[in-house]
Structure formats: C-alpha cells, structure tokens
C-alpha cells in the first residue's frame, strides 16, 4: 500500500455532493426519480460498508469453507436477481437451466482462472477468489439476462417460423437455430464491445483500483488482460450452456411446441 491517500469517512461524505447535484437537477426538471436516487445511493453505501468489514475479516482468517460460502451466496444472489428481473416469465424448467448454466459456466472459468492462470496459494485464497468471482459472476449474470430476454423474445415473435420448421420435419434444434445464434450474439456483444474501448476510452474498474492502490500499471494491465478473457469465456460458456439446455424447455418430449411459451 505505497502512496495511496486514505479517504476518511468525512471526505467520502463530501462525495455525496454529486448525489445532491443530481437531486437538484432532477427536481428542477420535474423528473420523478428522487426517491430511487436517494434509496439506491444509501443502499449502495450500506452494502459496500458491510461488505468491506466482512472482507477484512475474511481476508484475515482465510478458510476454504468461508470462501466457498461467499461464492455460493454470490451465485445465489445473481440467480435471484435474474429470476426477479423476469418476474413470472420464466417456466420452472427455464429457471433450472439458469441455475445450471450460471453455476457450471462461472465455476469452471473461475477455477481455471485462479488455479491454472494465476495459480494462487493457498488455493482458496479469498483475496483473489472473492473479487474475481464477483467479476465473472456479475458479467455472466448480465449475459444470461440479455440471453434469456432475447431467447423469449425470439421464441415469441418467431413462433410461426419455428412451428413451420417443425411441420417441415425439422428437429427442435434445427428449428430454433437462427434464434439461438442471434441470442448468443446479443448476449456476448456488450462484452466484446467493452474490450474494444478498453485502455483508450476508459480504464477498467479493476485496473483503476489496482493502480490507485499502488500496483504498477504493467502488472495491473496483465491482470486486466487476463481477467477480460476470463470474463469473455465465462459469459460465452454460461450463455452457451443456457441456450443448449434452454431452447428445449420450449418443447415437450414429443418435440411439440409447448402451448404456453412462457408463463404469463
């Protein structure tokens, strides 16, 4: 920790000036968002303070079970967020697919990244596990959200074409191929685009944090490059697993389209 200026609580409060500016603008323009802005600012503050103290404890007493528990909570929360986002629109089987794809996709990439690429010691070192799991799971969650949205939309708007393909003797897999491909595209596009602007348009959050805390920019860059590939891999893998299992949930065992594509 060489050379980083410690931000005292008082000076963090000064940063709340930004929130006040936004509130004033919103009030003057008559946009009805004050409540949300205040609530989400306070919520973020509380969540981060709490997380900070928990992490201090977790890093001081590394323990494989605690690390595992935190990863589990992250997964559970991301799955819960996805379910909430599509309130009621997901069938029970599609929900199961979300759980399977999120856990297999992110965990395999996480373990590969930490144990093969970075080679952390001890293997459960929470200082690496927790932040990197956060990035992989968070980005995969966004990817799955985009993917599910596009999949449901595709299956709804193109239902007639899918059914026509079935009538003409296509397997469900062939009948949904174009929907699946465009869904995959929609889900990983943001990740690909964020790689393009990286380092020129903006310095990514993780790198910024490392540089601020005194890490040499070249080390920070090495990490950033590796983590971006990790994120790309995790997003692609979760979305692919979700699609490979997910399209089937729109069909029954008899290869017939389910009457209701998703619950209303």
């Amino acid at each position, binding site marked *: 920790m060489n050379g980083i200026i410690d931000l005292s609580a008082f000076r963090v409060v000064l940063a709340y000036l930004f929130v006040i500016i936004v509130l004033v603008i919103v009030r003057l323009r008559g946009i009805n968002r004050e409540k949300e802005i205040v609530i989400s600012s306070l919520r973020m503050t509380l969540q981060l303070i709490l997380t900070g103290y928990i992490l201090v404890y977790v890093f001081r007493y590394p323990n494989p079970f605690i690390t595992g528990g935190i990863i589990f909570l992250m997964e559970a929360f991301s799955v819960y967020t996805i379910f909430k986002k599509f309130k009621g629109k997901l069938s029970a089987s599609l929900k199961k697919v979300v759980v399977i794809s999120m856990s297999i996709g992110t965990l395999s990439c996480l373990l590969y990244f930490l144990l093969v690429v970075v080679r952390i010691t001890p293997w459960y070192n929470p200082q690496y596990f927790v932040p990197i799991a956060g990035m992989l799971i968070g980005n995969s969650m966004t990817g799955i959200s985009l993917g599910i949205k596009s999949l449901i939309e595709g299956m709804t708007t193109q239902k007639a074409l899918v059914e026509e*393909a079935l009538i*003409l003797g296509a397997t469900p897999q062939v009948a949904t191929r174009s929907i699946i491909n465009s869904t995959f595209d929609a889900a990983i596009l943001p990740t690909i685009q964020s790689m393009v602007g990286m380092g020129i348009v903006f310095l990514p959050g993780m790198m910024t944090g490392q540089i601020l805390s005194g890490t040499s920019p070249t080390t920070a860059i090495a990490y950033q490059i590796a983590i971006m590939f990790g994120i790309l891999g995790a997003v692609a893998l979760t979305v692919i697993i979700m699609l490979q299992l997910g399209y089937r949930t729109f069909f029954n065992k*008899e290869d017939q389209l389910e009457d209701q594509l998703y619950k209303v």
Partner: protein
Amino acid sequence: MFEFYDVKYKDVLDLPKLEIKQEEITTFIGASGSGKTTILRMLNKLISPTQGRIIFNGTDLRQINSVAHRRTVSMLSQSPAIFDGSIRDNLNVGLRFQERELARDKDLNHILEQVKLNKPLEASANTLSGGEKQRLALGRILLLNSKVYLLDEPSSALDDETEEMIIQMLTEHVKREKKTIVMVTHSKAIAEKYSDTIIEISKGRCLTWRCNDERNN
C-alpha cells in the same frame, strides 16, 4: 392408414371413431372453428390428443418419433410461414430441415410449373402475393415427395380457375403415385368433385361421413 379411437383434444374435439384410408383422398369440411385444422395437426403429430389414441399404419402414434413422423407425413398449414430469402431458398427449406440433399434448379422449376407459379427462382419470396405464397408453400412440400400429404385449405387464397388447376394437378399426381391426401376445404364443390371420402365436422364431432362411391364406379 389413420384410425382414431375415442380421441379428444381439450374441449375442442370429440371423435369416438374415425378412419382415413390409404391411397384415398379424404376431405374434411365443416364450419369455421369446428376443429378441422386441429385434426390435421394431430395427424402430423404437431399436437397430441389429450385423450384416446391415433393409430398410424398399425402403430400407436405415441410410439412413433414425432420428427420422423412429420417427415413421412407432410403438412401444408393453413397459413404457411414463408422464410426470408429467395423462392429457391423457400422451396429447398423442407429438404434442408430434413437434412436431405437440396434439389437442382431443373427440379425446382418443374415444381414451380406444377403449382402454376411463374416466377424466377432468385425472386424474393417475401414480396409474393398471398395466393402465390400459398402455391410456393405447396411446391415446397411437393418437393419432399412424401407418401402422405395433409393439406389445410390448399386453395383458399386462389381464384376459381387456379384452384381447379391446382387441385386437378394434385389429385392426378396422388393417384398416379399411389399417395394419400387428407385435406380441408371450404369449397363443397371441390370436396364433391375430387374426394373419395368426405367427412363433415361440426363443433368437434364427426357429423357425416360419406364415400363418393358413384365417382369411383
């Protein structure tokens, strides 16, 4: 070829007994909403009866793989969807879906002639008129060369003259190749003139069932 035993579909259909014979032209007639399309969709295994069973050539349809069945029994749906692309793409689409070898242009043009569609293969399929799309969809399933055709109002968007020509071509083709047609039509005249058996459906039930014996004699 198809036998129905106590078949029900939700509260839409109730058919205690029904038989469709091989190498015949069987026509369903009946008011709108009576359940004709639903019957064809069951024959294609696009939906399954909620009760009862359908026997296809001696085997319960439930025991037959759906995709394989749909490749044996080709259906022209009531409002067939047209895919993006050219007329050639749309004719070939069934073969592509069934992972079969695509047809050569010579054969495609022959099919277009049969369905009286005088358009180049490169033309976009989306700009065709309703009746032209219907004939394109008919051509696309004729290309599959199946033993059984299920046709849901194959001539509903056509003028009388074209309708007559198309149905004439279909019946001749089927009789020559010893194939089977199950079709739905709104036109009593067409039903009387070309069918071996006419089945009238009313409110999901089989109302009358008659064989055109005098025509066969």
